[in-house]
């Protein structure tokens, strides 16, 4: 699908009418957030499905933040940091690069499609790369459909139980 087609994709998704993917993006301050800023100042277009959370370093992105985003209803999570060798804190992104494969492995075992979790390096100069990444990620999550984790867990009794009465004699 061409970029323009992605940008003009129906607001109402083919998968679930009226549904729009909600993507949480964790961007490091020094490279990737500036890259997103770059995309903005260059007036590059990308879908408004992404909610950006700026952190000081991708090494600060505790994997728990990623899980929490999904647990609270995100359809996808995007993690961006400086390219290896460019970290403002020298080795912050070295931690990220070791953590993300483990996050990916855990998410796969939890039945979350690989399309929903994207980890990419974006430098301060790569506005176009960021815009393209958001377009691509949004489209691939649109294809896999809504995740809706909170409802899923609520339906299984998490936090309140199921309260089925096995004998039903009012005991």
């Amino acid at each position: 699908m061409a970029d323009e087609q992605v940008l003009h994709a129906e607001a109402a998704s083919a998968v679930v009418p009226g549904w729009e993917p909600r993507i949480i993006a964790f961007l490091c301050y020094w490279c990737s957030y500036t890259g997103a800023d770059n995309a903005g100042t260059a007036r590059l277009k990308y879908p408004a499905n992404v909610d950006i959370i700026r952190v000081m370093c991708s090494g600060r992105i505790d994997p728990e933040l990623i899980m929490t985003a999904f647990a609270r209803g995100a359809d996808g999570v995007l993690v961006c940091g400086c390219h290896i060798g460019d970290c403002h804190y020298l080795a912050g992104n070295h931690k990220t690069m070791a953590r993300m494969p483990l996050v990916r492995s855990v998410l796969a075992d939890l039945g979350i499609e690989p399309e929903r979790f994207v980890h990419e390096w974006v430098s301060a100069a790569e506005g176009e790369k960021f815009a393209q990444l958001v377009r691509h990620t949004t489209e691939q999550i649109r294809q896999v459909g809504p995740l809706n984790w909170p409802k899923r867990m609520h339906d299984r009794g998490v936090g309140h139980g199921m309260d089925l009465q096995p004998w039903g004699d009012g005991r």
Partner: protein
Amino acid sequence: MNAQGGTGATNGKLKVAKYWASSCGGCDISLLEVGPHLLELIEAADVVFWPCAADFKYDDVAKYPDGYIDVCLFNGGVRSSEQEEIARLLRKKSKTLVAYGACAIDGGIPALANLTTPAEIYDVVYHQNPSLDNPNGVEPVPVFQTAHGELRLPDLYPQVLRLKDVVEVDYQIPGCPPQAHQVWKVLQAVVAGQVPARNDAVTVGCDDKAVCDECPRERRQVRVGGFRRSHQAIPEPGWCLLEQGFVCMGPATRSGCGALCVKANLGCRGCYTAPDGVEDRGTAMIGAIGSIIDATTEERAHEIVGQIADPIGTFYRFSLASSSLKGRR
């Protein structure tokens, strides 16, 4: 709480109860591990319900007045309608409800079943197991009509829940099982009426740091160039297991056990619940491991962490029901 006994008490002794839900029975045994102290406990308290050790029926509990039981130690997670019903019943009948052991607090080992579905579990247990003799493919059903009337079995829930998913919990004692010296410390406090202020699931019977804090092994500040499993090599004594490439849950596990496993040359299994400030133990462990990898390229980092066998089963061995995502989709 004090030692005046419950509303229905006749002899002034504390009324204690213990129940097992989705658990193995090790928690019940751990209570016996306090040894001769048990006699001191019996001096001060009457057991009014303990399926593992005493012959009380659910009906006996249902007939107690509300709040009759002073302390109920509840072990095991909630996987069936029977377990939830008894959890609700015991909550109603107990002044203090304690989640006892890893399963009641975090789901424990049984919560690893949250990585599969009830249908898949039935398929393996009743159809696929090699040792099975079930030619007619019989499966249990919750309701069955017989000539003598309807028979009911408890329903299997979609996934393992924690006790606090179902009812309000006052205290929690971690461990798989809780260690005897910690259990005795808590029981002494109960008998003396010196329990900490009641709040939402206060963790007692443990310390408040990580297992690393009480681990006798030395950290040499070296980075990890590869991971091994415990059957593949013998760890060097006295040196941090994680630094030697053996996965050890110490950094993401609460202290209080006395670093039992690491003293036996085995990586911490991670049974003593989360330290303060940690919500999701698996991700805490991923965070810790990511910080000690000896790699400067992405390929090398992926290669090293790729050597960790079964990351989800290892990092969430005891805590899947407490994790952010709780189980498989």
